[in-house]
């Protein structure tokens, strides 16, 4: 860029750029001139004493604590490496265990988001947790999903698969039996029609407890399929 400006006899832009460059050169010279103006005023001696005293205190502490790691710097170095790797592995394992949709591990955990799942595959209708008897009183509203989406074609393994389930969501209240209807707290009601085939009620309110109340075997299932 510079040679072109010179050949043109110095354009205004080139003049401006040169002026800026010279100003920045002078600015830099000014800054470097101020470099040694900062005096530490005895701070060096204080720092020397600080390091000495801290080193001595560290040695005393090591001697007083003793133990097989005494004075072994390699342990201090590696403990962080091994500890760090162990912590990462632990976090990954815990995260896998807490995944609510994992095919293994404790279902319905963690309790902050309570999920009632009715496993329809292999005919297992879980009641988790077991509902109290008072919830079976007819006055309490219930959610019913009767044979919704469970056809013979997409049912997959239909052995003793329940065709209808009844569930409710409650919370501790002031009613006569101590429970209060909380279906309005249920934020998700879904029926998964593929593979897993489960009815899921989900509430973000951790005080809400969701109970499966009833389940029935799928109507029309053949005997080979395990039906009645």
């Amino acid at each position, binding site marked *: 860029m510079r040679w072109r400006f010179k050949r043109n006899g110095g354009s205004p832009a080139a003049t401006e750029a040169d002026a800026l460059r010279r100003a920045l050169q002078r600015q830099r010279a000014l*800054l470097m001139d101020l*470099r040694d*103006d*900062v005096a530490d005023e005895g701070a060096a001696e204080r720092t020397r004493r600080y390091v000495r005293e801290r080193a001595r205190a560290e040695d005393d502490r090591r001697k007083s604590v003793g133990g097989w790691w005494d004075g072994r710097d390699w342990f201090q170095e590696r403990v962080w490496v091994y500890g760090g790797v162990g912590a990462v592995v632990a976090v990954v394992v815990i995260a896998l265990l807490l995944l609510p949709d994992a095919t293994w591990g404790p279902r319905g955990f963690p309790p902050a988001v309570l999920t009632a799942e009715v496993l329809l595959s292999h005919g297992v209708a879980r009641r988790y947790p077991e509902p109290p008897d008072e919830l079976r009183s007819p006055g309490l509203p219930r959610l019913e999903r009767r044979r919704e989406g469970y056809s013979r074609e997409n049912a997959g393994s239909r052995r003793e698969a329940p065709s209808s389930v009844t569930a409710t969501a409650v919370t501790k209240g002031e009613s006569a039996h101590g429970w209060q209807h909380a279906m309005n707290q249920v934020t998700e009601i879904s029926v998964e029609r593929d593979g897993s085939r489960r009815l899921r009620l989900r509430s973000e309110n951790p005080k809400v407890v969701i109970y499966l109340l009833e389940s029935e075997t799928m109507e029309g299932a053949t005997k080979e399929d395990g039906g009645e």
Partner: protein
Amino acid sequence: MWKVRTFWLVLSSGDTASPVIGGLGQSEQSGDRDRDGDPLVELLRAWQQGDPDAFDALMLRMHGKVFRVAYRLLGNRSEAEEAAQDVFWRLYRAGRKIREPEALHGWVYRTTVNAARSRGRRLEAQSETASMELAAWSADGEVGTEDRLVLREAVQQALGCLSPKEREVVVLRDIEGLEIADVASAMRVFAVTVRTHLSRARLKLRRELEQRGIHP
């Protein structure tokens, strides 16, 4: 990603001495580049080989530089002194393991920048405004003529208006006179990043100085 990194490294390694703006820095004295027979490196070697007094000598000779950089970055004398103490304590603990004593200067600058960043964050968390500290910066215990004191105060207030990264590049490059590659190493960034920050910081600093009536 690795290809990009390699490219940047190649780009920066062949260009370490050239400044952002042509003409600047060609005749600067680095002070740390000629490290053959560097007495500080020799002191570090002696300490690594078991001479306990060598560390004291090393610390006393390097303290001025560490304190100066920390002071420029933090704008606070007591914080700068504590940052210097952190740096030398780290050197005491890790210095025996430095395999290449020639890297001492880079290690010290890098540790100083890290210590200053850490203390700077703490200062911000305590909501002590940098401008208040900087206002009293040049008044405590510095010597010089009255004009020079005024100039120094203006410069340091202007430095306080830069962002932390910009202040770091200006202090390390323009005040301490380090090469671009050494600044990049101390800040753990690429050389092109240093150049970007530097050109922006120089222009910003110029505006701030002009606002204070200083026209370099």
